[in-house]
Structure formats: C-alpha cells, structure tokens
C-alpha cells in the first residue's frame, strides 16, 4: 500500500497552548481516512498545518506528500500539489453566483479578461459531477447549506484535487444532504481521490471510512483499520475519551409538573417576502421540569419559530400569545422576553452567538451583565470567577478565560454560547441544535446540564435534527413541518419511524420526497 501523505512529529504551539504534540498521520492512496477526536483535540489545527494555512516554520515536524518533503508557504502552495481543504466554516462569497465562486482566484481568463462562456460551461460540468442541478448563475445566498457544501467540493474538483480535506462537512447538513455528500466521497475514492474526513458523527465514519486516526489532547492515540475488523462506535469513543462511556444519554427520572410555559396560535411571516407564512398557528406547552423536543427536517421553520418567539428577532407580522405560569407575558422585545424568563441559545454561534473578538469571560456574562455588576459597575473579579466556573463545569478547553473566542475550537465555542445562557438563569431555555459540532463526551455533559436544569423545575425546549438525541433526552416530542406542528408524542412512545411518518403524511409532495430520501438514507446507515 502506497501512502500519499505522511505527517511525522507535527508539533504546533499557540501562545499558552500546545495544540499539537508530536502527531503522526499517514494517509494511503485512494482511501477515506477519518480524523476524529474531542473538541479542541487539534483536528482542525492539524489540517491547517497540512494545507499551509500555518506556513512551514510555524510548526515542527515533517510533511511528505507522494514521497516529496513539503514546505508550504501558504494555501496556494498546497493547492498546487492537489491538497484542497474545505474548512469547518464555509468560505463562499454570498452575493456572488455559483460560477463566480467556483473560479474565485482561479478565473477562467485570457489575458485578464474573463471568458464567461467557458466558465459557465465548466461550472455546469463541475456541478454535474457533484450532483447539483441548480443553474450556475444562482447566487450562493439563495441555496441552502447542503448545496453550498457541494459547491465547495465542486470548487475543489476544479483544482485537480488529489487529497480532499473536509472539516466537519456534515455538521449543518440534514440527513439526505449528508448522505449525498458521503456518496460523493465514495465515488471520488473510486476515481483515486483520497480524502481526510473530520466528523463527530460516528455513524458516518463507520459507513465510509477505510481507516480512522484518533487524536486526543493534541496527540495521536491510534490508527484503526476498518477492514481488519469492523470497529464499533464504542471502540472509537473509548479511543477518543480514553475510557468507556456506558451510556450516550444520562439517565433521569422525568417527573413533569404543572404547565410552565405555553404558546397559543403563534404565527409569523417571512421578513422579506411579505405575506409568506413561515410559522403557522403553533400551539405548544412545556411543563415544569420537562424537556420538550421539536423534531423536523432542516427548513421546517423550527429556528424561525423560536426566534420569532424570542423578542421578535425573526420575521414580521408576528401574532400569538405566550404564557408563563398561566399569566400572559410580553415577549415583544428580547429584553422583555428575557425579563420574563425566556432564553434562546442560537444554532449559529459565529454570527448570532459570540462576540468573536472578545474573550471567553466577556461572552459568558454578556446576557446577564447585571449578575456581575452592582448599580451598573462591573465587579471584575466576580466576573472572572463566573467564567472560570463555567469553564470547569462544561470543560471548555482553553488556555484561560481571557482567550479570545475566535481562537477556540468549534465545539468549545458552542460551549461558551451555552454558558452564556445558563448564566442568564432562564425559566424556559430554548436550545437550537445545542450539540452541533460537539464531541460525544461533551454532548453527555450538555445532556447532564439539561437534566440539572429540569431537575430545578425549569423547562427546556430542545430543537434538534438528530432524532436519536431527541429520543434520548426529551420527555415529549413535537414534530414540525412546513411551519406547522403536525404531531405530538411522548418520547416513550416515539421512534424515528413514527416521527418520519408524521412528517411525510403531513407534507406536501416536495417535502415528502425529501423525507423519503432521508428515511432511506437512515436505513442504509443502520
């Protein structure tokens, strides 16, 4: 077996953190190599070293690509050899078309003049290769994240890719989109393109990976070969966290009390397309000490509902009533909603969750500054204590709480967002995809915290696209589709099939088709 890539003894330090410590990685010609590890284990950093984002000289160790030693000074150097990275955060220009994005920096030009005909033709061909049927003229903003991900891959193809690196490509994709993407990787494999796949979704890895390398705390733990013997998810988890994890979901005796929070006839329109209803007559309630899940496909309107409820931060022409303890409450602005005990932890941490330039400490206290201040004057020491407390409780991996959040790994950023809302001390907490991009161990921590919250008599609304998570954590599940609630069931009686069935039978044709694909995808994964 020839190896296409050898990384040996890679060490990379940032001020105060040793992100990688003597890491080895070897990828064979034409394999899909999975790279996994807890949040902050150093996966993204290792790939940035490989692709030249961190240039030669800023790290120690040796990189050999197809036998040749490499000293990349920047991404351009690694791309020349066919090493293409698709980052955790997509790097497309939203207001440019697909074609323009595909050839950004690599324009189809003759003597500086872009040949649009050739570009469009080539774009169409690339799109076909990744299975996209949209017109190349479409703007990036007008297509969903799943398709954007495919455009990124098409872009990689346009550069004669030999080794494709995907950093958590499926984190924000629904199941059918994820599945399409994995299929694509398998097809590439047949064409001899090797890939490195970073993911926290272990079932995906089990499905496509040839070998798995596990990182822990910036060191290589082991490399497992999936062909020797099929490896179980438990085996991988053990490698990642260093011990057995008996349960994926912490046990809790659920004991819901009276109705704590209730929403009646809640509707909202699209903010730009006037008159298009995005949230339709939602009736929902949460009992004291209850975790209520909202299931649905991407685009079902769950985030839109939650945000319109939380101080009208989404949509317009919002109608409906909200009640806390049977009393109608005013949620028309965010500060009123918060004052009435509501909190909403966003799914989009970079844009809506964090002030990236600020440190962990300032982000944690932002939603409840009065909690660390007296008459408007901040008590700095108390603030630091609070931040350190959350750092310990959620195991946020960082040098210290004065580290800028922009330098945290994706999963640890998510934990900072959660800390912020936990510190705000809400009565009803809406969590929107709280475990996206989070490793198994940290997920467990977050579920434990959810359990603590409800044990204190609070209510939690959990929006999640991962059905097993909903089934494992929620007491009761609402199913949402096309902006409306279409079913409600106790978690004990729910199953993935039942939920998908509820979506399909309620849906218009288009959604039904999507749901069918998703259902089929799940079966093939199991």
């Amino acid at each position: 077996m020839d190896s296409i890539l050898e990384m040996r003894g890679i060490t990379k330090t940032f001020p105060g953190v040793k992100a990688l410590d003597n890491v080895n990685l070897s990828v064979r010609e034409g394999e899909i190599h999975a790279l996994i590890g807890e949040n902050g284990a150093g996966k993204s950093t290792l790939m940035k070293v490989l692709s030249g984002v961190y240039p030669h000289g800023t790290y120690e160790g040796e990189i050999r690509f197809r036998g040749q030693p490499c000293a990349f000074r920047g991404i351009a150097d690694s791309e020349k050899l066919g090493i293409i990275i698709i980052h955790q955060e997509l790097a497309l220009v939203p207001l440019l078309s697909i074609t323009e994005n595909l050839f950004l920096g690599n324009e189809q030009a003759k003597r500086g003049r872009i040949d649009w005909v050739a570009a469009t033709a080539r774009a169409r061909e690339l799109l076909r290769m990744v299975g996209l049927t949209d017109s190349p003229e479409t703007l990036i903003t007008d297509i969903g994240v799943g398709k954007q991900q495919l455009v990124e891959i098409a872009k990689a193809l346009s550069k004669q890719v030999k080794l494709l690196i995907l950093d958590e490509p499926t984190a924000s994709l629904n199941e059918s989109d994820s599945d399409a993407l994995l299929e694509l990787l398998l097809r590439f494999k047949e064409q001899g393109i090797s890939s490195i796949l970073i993911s926290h979704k272990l079932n995906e890895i089990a499905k496509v990976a040839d070998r798995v390398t596990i990182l822990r705390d910036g060191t290589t733990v082991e490399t497992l070969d999936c062909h020797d013997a099929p490896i179980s998810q438990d085996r991988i988890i053990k490698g990642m966290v260093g011990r057995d994890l008996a349960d994926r979901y912490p046990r809790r005796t659920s004991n819901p009390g009276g109705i704590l929070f209730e929403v009646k006839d809640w509707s909202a329109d699209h903010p730009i397309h006037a008159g298009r209803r995005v949230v339709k007559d939602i009736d929902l309630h949460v009992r004291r000490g209850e975790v209520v899940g909202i299931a649905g496909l991407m685009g079902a309107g769950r985030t839109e509902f939650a945000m319109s409820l939380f101080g009208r931060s989404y949509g317009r022409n919002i109608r409906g009533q909200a009640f806390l303890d049977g009393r109608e409450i005013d949620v028309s602005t965010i500060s009123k909603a918060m004052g009435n005990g509501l909190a909403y932890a966003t799914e989009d941490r970079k844009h809506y969750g964090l002030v990236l330039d600020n440190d962990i400490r300032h982000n944690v206290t932002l939603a409840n500054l009065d909690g660390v201040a007296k008459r408007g004057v901040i008590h700095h020491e108390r603030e630091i204590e609070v931040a350190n407390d959350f750092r310990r409780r959620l195991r946020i991996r960082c040098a210290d709480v004065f580290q800028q959040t922009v330098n945290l790994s994706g999963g640890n950023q998510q934990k900072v967002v959660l800390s912020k809302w936990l510190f705000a001390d809400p009565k009803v907490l809406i969590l929107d995809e709280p475990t996206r991009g989070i490793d198994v161990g940290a997920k467990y921590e977050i579920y434990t915290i959810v359990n603590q919250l409800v044990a204190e008599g609070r209510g939690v609304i959990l929006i999640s696209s991962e059905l097993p998570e909903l089934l494992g954590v929620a007491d009761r599940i609402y199913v949402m589709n096309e902006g409306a609630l279409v079913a409600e069931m106790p978690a004990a009686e729910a199953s993935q099939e039942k939920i998908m069935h509820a979506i399909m039978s309620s849906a218009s044709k288009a959604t039904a088709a999507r749901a069918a694909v998703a259902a089929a995808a799940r079966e093939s994964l199991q």
Partner: protein
Amino acid sequence: MSAELNLPAAPPRQASMAKFLKSHMRDYGMLISLLAIVAFFQYMTNGTLLQPLNLTNLVLQNSYIVIMALGMLLVIVAGHIDLSVGSIVGFIGALAAILMVQFHWHFVPTAIVSLLAGAAIGAAQGYWVAYFRIPSFIVTLAGMLVFRGLSLALLAGQSVGPFPVEFQRLSSGFIPDIFGTEGFHTTTMVLCLATPAILIAFSVAARLRRHRFAIEQEPLVLFLLKSAGLFAVVAYVGWLLSTYKGLPNVLIIMALLIGIYAFVTRDTTIGRRIYALGGNEKAAKLSGIDTRRLSFYTFVNMGVLAALAGLIFAARLNTATPKAGVSFELDVIAACFIGGASASGGVGRVTGAVIGAFIMGVMNNGMSIVGIGIDWQQVIKGLVLLAAVCFDVYNKGKA
C-alpha cells in the same frame, strides 16, 4: 465525567514578564512612542517643548481634540464613525457667539443651550444611523456639510467676537492658588502630587483584590516601574506648570472627562455593551442588548462633547469664525486609530485615544517650533497614522 483534562490546578498568579509584555505590546508601545516623541522634540527644539509656557499651550491646543476623541472612541468602538464633529465645533461656536455677543446672554445659559444643541445634533444624526440603519459615514458626511453651511449662515460669513471675560476663562483661565505663594502655584503642585498618589493607591487595592482571587496580573516589577513613571511624569509636569500660571481650567475639565470615560468603558455595563455591539451586533442584540438605543446614545454623547469642544475652541480664539473646526474630525479620528481602535468596531481604549491625541499634539507643536511647514507636517502625520495602524495589524497577525 469527572476528569478535568488540561486544567491547571490553580491559575498562574503572575504572568511571566516576557509573555505579559508580548501580549500588551501595544499598550506599552504607545506610551513609549509618546515619550520618545517628546524626548525627540525636546532635543530638537533645544528644550523649548517642555518650557512651562509652551507646555501650557500644548495642553490648551490639544484639549478640544482630546475631549472629542473620548466621544469618537465610543462611536468607533460601536462600529460607526462621525465625520461631522469639526463642523459641529464651528456651528456651536457660532451659536454661542451669536447668543453672547448679539443677544447679550450670560455665558452660563449660553453654555447650557450650546451643549443641549450639541445633544440635539447628535440625536438627529444618531436617529438615522440607529433606527434607519443608514451608514454613519453617509449620515455624518451630510452633517458635516449641513453644519458647516449653517455656521456660515449664522455668522453671515463674518467673525463674531469678542466674548465676555468670564467665558474666555474657560480656555485661558487657570485655577486659583489657595495658598497664595509668590511665584509658585502651590495648589497645582499639591494637586499634581495627590492625584497620581490616589490613582496608585487605587491600583494597589485592585492588585490586592486580584491577588486574593488568584487572578493573573501584570508582573510586580512592571507595575512598580509604571507607577513610579506615572508619579514622576505627573509631578514633573505639575512642577513645570507651577512655575508658570498653574493648571489651566481646561486641563481640569479634560482630566475629569478622561477619568469618567475610562471608568465607563472599562468598568460599567454600558461600556461593556458598547464593545459587544461593535464586536458583533447580532450577537449583542440576541443577548438582550438594545443595540439601536445604544448606537443612538453614542452619537448623542459625541454631539455633547463636540459642543463642549466648540465652546472651548471659541473661548480660546475669543471669536467665532466660519472656518472654526475645519478638519478637526480628521485629527480626532486619527487619534483614535493611532490609539489602537479598530476600524471595524469592538476594539479600542480611552487611554489609547488620549495618548494618540497627545502624540498628534506633540508632533504638531514640536514641528511648528522646529519650523517645519504645514505641508510637510501633514505628510509626516499621515505617515505616522499609517505606521501605527500597520504596527497593529502586524502584531495581530503574529499573535
């Protein structure tokens, strides 16, 4: 999961000197640059720069820039810009002149009306920026033209003055000496010894508190050096001023404002919210911060400070001219950026802006004494601004 991976048993109490210096390079770098520039011109002007008379002038010439830089810093941190402040200086000067000279108002109601007018102007501009989301660059560019035009109209193209003596004292007055010593302003000296002493006492208290909470802080050696330096500089300046006419009134106003704004930005919830707003408006909003109202008030605040600067400037010239305040906005904005504020918002410090303003001021003053023409002065100032910001960007890239 009980294991606490990667967590040190207790946070380190004191950063190592090198690491601390590296992460605070910018702060110390600015102070050192200012001192270096002062030393340079002190040498080039054969000691004229720090003569009591010139030092007093330097403070008077710079006061209005420093005062506006305080407001501009908040505006820039909030993610906006205000190009209209120079025109507001001119307009408020004209307004005050008309009220005092043509309508014979007393200077107290005149000052109150002027400051309120400044607030109203700030509110008018802030309203469009905050509630209609019109870019501040455009709104205040419009304001710049409008208020320049209005001051021309108010003054009918003429200069209006002189002002009552009490009003002139705002700029040219000095604090009274309660000790009444001949030839030496004892009150000034006492104030200039007491103020740094009190400040140092406060920071010692803060240090002890941080120590009790086991929070990493500035290495002791640096702290001692800095405190000694602060004390020495203030005492020296105090001594120089005492041998002349003492502390100018403006300096007292300026020092108080600097203290208040430093406190507000660092230690209050409002300050913290402004930084969050500039850093990520959407996240700030979803955290329950009324971002629109906050933006609005940073402009109101800017308007008031610009009005105050307008009064001080008019009092200093003892006449209101249609050209008063032309291109002040550039000096003010430059002071903030030299002081480390980020053009994209969310970053910047009051102390930085003040030092930035003084770097500009000392250069203006020093170059004039040396006899460098206004043409080359501009070139040099432009290059210094560029160099300071390049240093910032370079530093950020390295970290």
